[in-house]
């Protein structure tokens, strides 16, 4: 084919030689250079440091190669194993439950918003419920630790006292009680992220063909039936997409837990990242770089597998990957 074209000399876009094409794009290479340098320095160079997972490396000492000992410690050293497995289980439990309940509340709120005929009221509520998303986790933690404070100035505790639910001088330590910490953490997450989560569902709802509702009207469907048989099925694909996209990130749970973490609730609140942070960076002279790098590597590998699974699931469900 190519030969024939050549011999006949027909007009055809002939690919220029590689060196010529590179030269023609020289401006673009130059423009990519800053990105390249930054990514090499901040993303790829740290990957070389993963080798410390196989070293004994305490702060201020020289690293010595120990093979798989750090991984061995993770799964069999009595103290480290308990702390590590607690953190691992908490990471999965906290992020998955958080993901399910915030997605559920977002779906409910977006269906309500969609049913609202008064556009002005709808707009106002949207503005209000998006607001907490822009508050940092530190701000959120500050607001709620003041409101939930177990003192005479804590709004919730004093209200419970005046309603007679709590006795005089009796307080609930919401953020420092293993019984209360998780429910409070989930509620705060619902408060902060429900509104923002509705955006993607509202976009889907706006795209539903109005004829479907008209047809349902003609068939005499009630409002509830329309929600159940028209709205929800239309949302199903988006819900699955949101769950898949976020499932890939479950290992990344960090800041939202770090700001609420206290020693007293460590057993229910510690996640992999806070565990790495505490034992690897915030432990002062006893900081253990080698072991925590190994824990970090384990976290990255699990995260990587999750991303690949979610990518595969995403391709199945919606025809394109997540990365």
């Amino acid at each position, binding site marked *: 084919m190519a030969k024939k074209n050549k011999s006949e000399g027909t007009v055809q876009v002939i690919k220029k030689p*590689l060196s010529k*094409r*590179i030269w023609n*794009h020289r*401006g*673009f290479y130059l*423009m*990519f250079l800053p*990105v390249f340098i*930054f*990514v090499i320095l*901040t*993303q*790829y*160079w*740290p*990957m*070389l*440091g*993963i080798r410390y997972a196989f070293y004994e490396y305490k702060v201020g000492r020289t690293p010595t190669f120990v093979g798989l000992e750090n991984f061995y410690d993770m799964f069999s050293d009595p103290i480290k194993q308990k702390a590590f497995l607690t953190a691992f289980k908490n990471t999965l439990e906290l992020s998955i439950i958080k993901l399910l309940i915030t997605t559920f509340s977002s779906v409910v*709120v977006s269906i*309500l918003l969609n*049913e*609202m*005929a008064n556009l002005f009221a709808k707009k106002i509520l949207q*503005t*209000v*419920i*998006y*607001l*907490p998303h*822009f508050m*940092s986790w*530190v*701000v959120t933690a*500050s*607001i709620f*630790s*003041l*409101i939930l404070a177990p003192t*005479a*100035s804590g*709004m919730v505790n004093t*209200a419970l006292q005046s309603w007679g639910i709590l006795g005089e001088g009796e307080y609930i330590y919401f953020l420092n009680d293993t019984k209360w910490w998780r429910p409070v953490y989930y509620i705060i997450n619902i408060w902060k992220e429900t*509104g923002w989560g509705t*955006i*993607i569902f509202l*976009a889907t709802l706006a795209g539903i063909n109005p004829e479907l509702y008209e047809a349902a009207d003609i068939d005499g469907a009630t*409002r509830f039936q329309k929600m159940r048989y028209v709205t929800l099925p239309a949302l199903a694909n988006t819900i699955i997409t949101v769950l898949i996209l976020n499932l890939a990130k479950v290992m990344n749970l960090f*800041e939202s837990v*770090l*700001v609420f973490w206290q020693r007293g609730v460590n057993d229910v609140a510690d996640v992999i990242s806070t565990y*790495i*942070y505490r034992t*690897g*960076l915030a432990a002062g002279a006893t900081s253990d770089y080698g072991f*925590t*790098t190994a824990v*970090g590597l384990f976290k*990255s590998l699990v995260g990587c597998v999750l991303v690949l699974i979610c990518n595969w699931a995403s391709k199945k469900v919606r025809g394109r990957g997540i990365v």
Partner: protein
Amino acid sequence: MAENTKIAVKRRKKIKIFPIVNYLLFILIGLLILVPIWKVIVDSLDAKTVAALRLWPYEFTIAGYKRILTYNNLYMPLLNSVITTLLGTLLGLVLSTLGGYVLIQFEMPGRNFFAYFLLITMVFSGGMIPEFLVYKQLGLVNNLMAIVVKHGINVYNLVLMRNFFEGIPQGLFEAARIDGCSPMGIFFKIVLPLSKAALASIGLMFAVGAWNDYTAANIYIMKPSLYTFQQQLKSMIGSGDLPPSTEINTSTLANASIMIAIIPFMILYPFLQKYFVKGVNIGAVKE
């Protein structure tokens, strides 16, 4: 005939009840979101410590805000946060526009390599400790630039930018090239002016990220004189580390500090809401 009207009446009744329930739910949800925020606003303006929720402060004062803006240990963190936010947003926009622009050059040799070069970092990373050791070697520990760099590199935002650029008609690039415009010229004269909405949306995402940052600051900044405002807030309220002050109520000061951390975006937010929302939609619902 009579039956028909009966049905019509029934219908109308049903339709009337739902909106009322919906309005009530709306008000309830709105209040649940707003109550904690309102409590902070009122407490920050009240000279007394009051546990109960109220509409208006008992004893109005702005001493809390004054204290933050005049007390060294409080306005320095604020300044540090402003610096890291501005520089982080600037670096983020420069890198994501440059990278996004190069990634839509489908003819460029090595373009796929660059795409994978970036995508790998979204799936796999060195982790907290190796990253800390590298930043240490780069002299970024106890250096505000650590936060700037950490937020300036964001491959996810770069890909969002690329997706937006891809929507610009290729014919425009072609025409400019024929007119003898250089890649840099096309970038500045065509790509950037056509992408104002994306620049606003993604710029806002960078700004919110850097302003709200606590993780990076917490890892890389240990010197109290370099604390960002979020760090200062955490150490004040989380550890009760309030600056010495005799003339001011601690609750007033604590709540005013929270307000200072929120105010910049509270003021901008009503005007910029559509850009925030657009940012989500560029990424999530591309079709």
